[in-house]
C-alpha cells in the first residue's frame, strides 16, 4: 500500500473536513461521500478495459453496486439474476446515466474473461460492468462501500444505490420486489424525484405492483426461481422449466433443487451437463427445504399442465436435459 497514495488521500480528507466547517451543512453529503471518500483505484471491466473507480465509475453517476464472485454456489447468482431484472425494468437509462457494477470479491479467480462469461450468462446489458482488479484495490473499494465481512461466505448480498453527484447513498435489498429496487435507483435522480404526478394518490413511478401471489409454491417461484427460469417462455439464465417434472425423476429434482452443489461435486452426469450447457453460471444452493421443493414441484406441475404438457412421471430417468 503506497504511502504516497495514502498521503494524498489524507491531505484531501483534511481539506474536505476543513471546507465542511466553512460551507455549512447543505452540501455535507456530497462533500463527505465523494472524491475524498472513494478511492480512485484502477479496476478492470469484463471487456478488459481499465477504469478508475471514482473518476470513471462514481463521479456524477447514478449507480447500483453489488458484490459477487463467479464461483459462488449459493445466494450470489440469484442476486445477480435479480440485478438483471432490475436492469431490464430500468430500460435504456442503464448505460446512459444509471450504471450497474458487480464487483468481484475473488479477483484472483475472476479474470476479465471469467467475468465476461458470467455477465453473458445473466444477459447483462450495456451499462452493467463486472469489475475485477488487484486484490488490494478491491479491498479498498469493498471496505469503502461497506462490504467489510471477514470471510467470503459472509459477504453482503444487498446492493448500494448511490448518486456520485449528491453523495446520496442507500442500501437496498435485492430480494424485495424488483419494481421497488428500480424505484430506489430512479429516486437517486433529483429530477426524477421532482416530477409531480397529477393523479392524486399515485406515485410517480409507473412500475406495476406485484400480482397477487396465491398459488402454492408461486411465491417461492417468483422469489427464488423466476429471475433465472421461465415456464414455457424459453431459456433465460437457466433452462425453461416447462415440463421439467416430466423430463426428470422427482427424486432427482428434489435432490438437485436442494443440493445442486453436492450433485455437481459428485459428478452427477445431468448436473455436470447442465453446468456445461449454461456456461458461466451454476444453479445455486438456495437452502430449500423438502417442503419448499414440494411446493415448487406442485407449482411447476400445475403451470406445465396449464400449458398442456403431460405430467406423467418420466421414464427412463435423466432422459433429456
Amino acid at each position, binding site marked *: 500500500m503506497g504511502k504516497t497514495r495514502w498521503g494524498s488521500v489524507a491531505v484531501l480528507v483534511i481539506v474536505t*473536513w476543513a471546507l465542511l466547517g466553512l460551507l455549512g451543512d447543505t452540501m*455535507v453529503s456530497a462533500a463527505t461521500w465523494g472524491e475524498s471518500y472513494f478511492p480512485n483505484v484502477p479496476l478492470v471491466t469484463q471487456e478488459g478495459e481499465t477504469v478508475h473507480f471514482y473518476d470513471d465509475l462514481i463521479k456524477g453517476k447514478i449507480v447500483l453496486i453489488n458484490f459477487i464472485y463467479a464461483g459462488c454456489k449459493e445466494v450470489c447468482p440469484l442476486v445477480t439474476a435479480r440485478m438483471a431484472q432490475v436492469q431490464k425494468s430500468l430500460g435504456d437509462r442503464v448505460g446512459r446515466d444509471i450504471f450497474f457494477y458487480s464487483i468481484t470479491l475473488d479477483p484472483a479467480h475472476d479474470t476479465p474473461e471469467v467475468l465476461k462469461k458470467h455477465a453473458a450468462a445473466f444477459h447483462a446489458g450495456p451499462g452493467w460492468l463486472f469489475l475485477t482488479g488487484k486484490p488490494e484495490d478491491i479491498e479498498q473499494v469493498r471496505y469503502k462501500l461497506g462490504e*467489510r465481512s471477514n470471510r467470503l461466505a459472509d459477504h453482503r448480498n*444487498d446492493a448500494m444505490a448511490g448518486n456520485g453527484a449528491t453523495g446520496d447513498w442507500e442500501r437496498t435489498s435485492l430480494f*424485495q420486489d424488483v419494481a421497488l429496487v428500480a424505484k430506489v435507483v430512479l429516486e437517486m435522480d433529483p429530477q426524477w424525484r421532482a416530477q409531480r404526478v397529477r393523479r*392524486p*394518490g399515485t406515485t410517480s413511478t409507473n412500475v*406495476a405492483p406485484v400480482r397477487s401471489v396465491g398459488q402454492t409454491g408461486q411465491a417461492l417461484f417468483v422469489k427464488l426461481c423466476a429471475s433465472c427460469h421461465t415456464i414455457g417462455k424459453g431459456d433465460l439464465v437457466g433452462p425453461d422449466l416447462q415440463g421439467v417434472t416430466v423430463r426428470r425423476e422427482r427424486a432427482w429434482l428434489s435432490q438437485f433443487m436442494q443440493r445442486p*452443489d453436492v450433485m455437481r461435486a459428485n459428478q452427477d452426469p445431468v448436473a455436470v451437463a447442465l453446468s456445461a450447457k449454461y456456461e458461466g453460471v451454476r444453479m445455486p444452493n438456495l437452502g430449500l427445504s423438502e417442503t*419448499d421443493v414440494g411446493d415448487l414441484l406442485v407449482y411447476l406441475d400445475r403451470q406445465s399442465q396449464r400449458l398442456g404438457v403431460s405430467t406423467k412421471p418420466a421414464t427412463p430417468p435423466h432422459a433429456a436435459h
Partner: protein
Amino acid sequence: MEKEFPMSIYLPSNASKRRLREAQNARNNRAEIVKALSHGQITRRDLFKWGLFTTAGLLLNKNGLSPYAKSAFAGEPTGVPPTPIDGAFPLTQPLPRLHLETPLPLTKIVMPNGEWEARWPSGVLPNQPLNAKRLSWHTDFSNHPAGNTPANPYINPITHRGPIEGRPPGEWFGHQRWKEFFPQVGYLMSLGPCAPGTKFHPAWPDQQANRVWSFYEGGFGGASHLPPPLLKGRYGEPILMRIHNSCPVDRTANGGFGRNEMSTHFHNAHNGAESDGASNAYHFPGTFYDYHWGTTLARHDQINRSATDRRASGPDGRGGLIQVPGDFRELQGTMWFHDHRFFFTSENVYKGMAAMINYYSGPDRGNEVLTDGVNLRLPSGSLLDWGNLDFDVNLLIADMATDPSGQYFFDIFTTDGFIGDRLHVNFAWQPYMEVLPRKYRFRTINASMSRFLQLALADQNGRPVPFQFIANDGNFVVRPLLLTQLDQQGTAERYDIVVDFSRFKIGDKVTLVNLLQQTDGRKPDKALSLAQALARNSPDTAVGPVMEFRIVGAVESVDVPGYIHYASSQDLSQVPPTLTEQIPIVAPVRTRHVEFVRGGGDSTNTPTGTCIPECGGRESFPWSIKVNGESAHSLNANRISLLIPKPGEVEHWTYQNGGGGWDHPIHLHFEEGMTMNRGNEPIPATERLVRKDIWRLRPSGRVQFQVRFGEYGGAYVNHCHNTVHEDFAMLLRYQVLTDRNNPNDSDVHVEIIPTPIPSPDGVTFMTPEVLAEGNPAGNSVSIAQTNGGVVGTGGTGSTSGTTTTTGSSGSGTGGTTGTTTTSSSGSGSGRSGRRRR
C-alpha cells in the same frame, strides 16, 4: 509514525498538521491540568478518577494529554478519527434532564356522519391545526377533485404536492378502536433540524442544523433541541401524537447522514399497526402523521374485562384511579419511541429521532407518598399527584462520534454495526448529576445503534455500589433483585434500577461505569472488572465513567421549579418486596422457531480458494424462519413471514442466533414475551420469567419466550435492534389478525392488508406475499386486494372486490392443501357502512 495508521480509512500516515495540532492541544491540556491542580481547583483524586493519573502520580501519556503520546486513530472502532474533546474535561457538565413535554387537551367533536374528531386547543399554532380523526387526511386529499395540484386544500403545505398527512388513506390505516380509546390529550410535535447552540458539551462546537434532527414542539419551520423529549402517559388517558416532518425537502441536505423520510415507532406500546410506525408507512417533509397511542392495557379483551381490578388502572390526577380492563401484570413503564424508516433506522435514530415516554399506572404511580394499597411508592417524589420526576430519572445512554471538526458523524456504509467512541447521557457527553442522600430510580436505556453496554456503580474508592433492579424493558420483575452490576444491555433494552445514596455523605461521589469493551459492531469484546474499567484500561474510549452522581445537601425540584428538596427531609419512598405477580407458563397453542442467520460456521472458503468447488462455509440469507419444524427463508418487508391467526392464543417462540460470531438484540414489536429459557445456557435472574420485548441472543445462543397477541391487528415486525443490522434487513414481518366475532376488534384486520408504498405524491399499496411457512398449518387467510397500486381515484380506496385465500403447505412430502379463491368485498369505502369505529 506511519505504522500507527495502516488500518485508518480517513487519516493515514502523514497527517502531520493534525498531529502538530494534537500535540499543541495536549500541551495546553496538560498545562491547564497542572495549573488547576496547583490552584486547588481539582485534586489528584479527581485526576485519578478521570483516569488521567497513574498510581505513581504521573499524568498519563494519553492522546490529548501528552505531547508525546501516540495518536489513536488506527484503533478507533468507528473507523474515523476520534471525537475531539477540545479541552473539555469529563464529568464537568450537569446532566440535562430529558425535555418534558406538556400535553394539549383535546375536544371531542361529533361529526354529522357519526365519526368523532378531536379538536386541538386554539392558539397553539398560528393556524388552527386540522382535527385528528380516524381516517387519514390523505383520504380527503385523494378524494378531492383538484387532485395533486395546489388547488387541493389537503395538499402538503410545504412542497405543494402530495397529501398533507402521510398516514396512508382509507380503512387499512384507519385508527383501530378509535372511539373506544378516543384521545383525550395530544401532542403537536415536529422532527427537524436542530437549533443554533445545540451541542454535546459546552466546550464543543455548535452542531450544524442538519447534523442533528430531533423533536420540537409545534408545526413546520421550527428548530429542534437536545436533549430529546420525555412524555408522561397514563393508563386511561389515550394520546394523539401528531408528528410533523420538518426536515429539509432536499433529501441530500442531511448533514452527511439520515433520510428526511420518517416513521415513528412507539417501541412496544400496545397500539394498532397503523400507529406502530413500522409498517413501511413513512412520510415526507411537509406532512404530518397522526399516531393513536391509546394506552390500551394488554389483555383488555380477555382479562379483567369489567375493570374491577384496582391494580389495572392509571392515576386520575386527584389521588384516585381510572380503572381499565386488562391484565395488571402487563402494565408497562419505561418506554421510548424512535424513527423506524426501513434502511435508514440507524442513521435517523442516531441523528436524534428518539425520545422516551414513561407510562404511569396505579401501582407505578410516580408518587412515593400516596398510600392506597395499590401504589408501590417507588422513588419519584410527591409534589405532583403522579409522574414525579424529582427522584425518578431517565438516562438515555448512547455512543456517538464526531468528525475532526466536532460535527456529529455517522458511517453510512457500515453493515457490521456502528460503534461510536464516546458515550453521552441524554445527549450530553459524560455529565454529572447532583443527588440527595436518598433513594433514586433510574430508568436506563441503551440507545446506541450497535454498541452493547454493561453498567455498574462505583464509589469514590472504586468499590462497587449495590442497587436494586426493578424492571426490564419497562416490565416489573416480581421481586426486586439486589445487584452490583447489570447484565449486558443491548440496543433498546431498558433497565430500571433503584440506587440508595443514603449511605453516602454530602460531598461523596458515585460513578456510573461502563464495563463492556466493544470495538466491532458484531458483538462486544469483553467485560472489564470494575477496577480495570475505572482505570480505563481499554482501547475503547467508551469504557469507564459514563456519568457521576454528586451527593449534595439540597437540589431544586424539576416537578415544581423553585421548590428545594433538602437532604434532611425524610425519604418516604419504598421498594416493596413484591412489585407484581408472576404470569404462569402454560401449554402453548403452537410453537414457532425463528432463526437469525448472519455469518456461518467455519469456512476455508477464501478468495484465493483452497477448497473450491465444494466447501464447508455456506452462504445464506440473512435470516431464516422455521415454524413448527417446517423451514423457509428469505426476507422482505412486503412478505408476511409469521401470521398470528387470531387473538389470545398462547404461543411459545424460540429465537435462535444461527450466526456464530455475532450477537443480535432481537426486538418483537407490539407484545412482550415472558422469557422462559436460553436453551441449555444459564439465564440471569433479571430475565428468568421476566417480560421483555427485546432479547440479546448471544453468539450462537437462543431464547424461548411465551407470548400472546390481542386487541389490535395489522402488520408488525420483529427484527434485530442493532439498527445497522436491521437496515441490513434482519427484519421479518408478522401479521396479527383480529377476531371478527369481537365487536370491539377492527373488522379491517380480519384479513391481511396490503403493504403501503409511500411517495411524495401519496401512498400506493402492494399486495404482500404470505409465506406459507409462516402461516400455521391448516389456516386459511385472505388478503385485501389492491387495484393497480392506485388508491383514491374517485373514491376512498378504489379496491377491487376479490380476495385470495392461501393455504399453508402441508407436510414435507410435497403434498399441499388446496388453494382456493373466494370472493368477498374489498377493503375500500364500499364496506364503510358497517365499519366499526
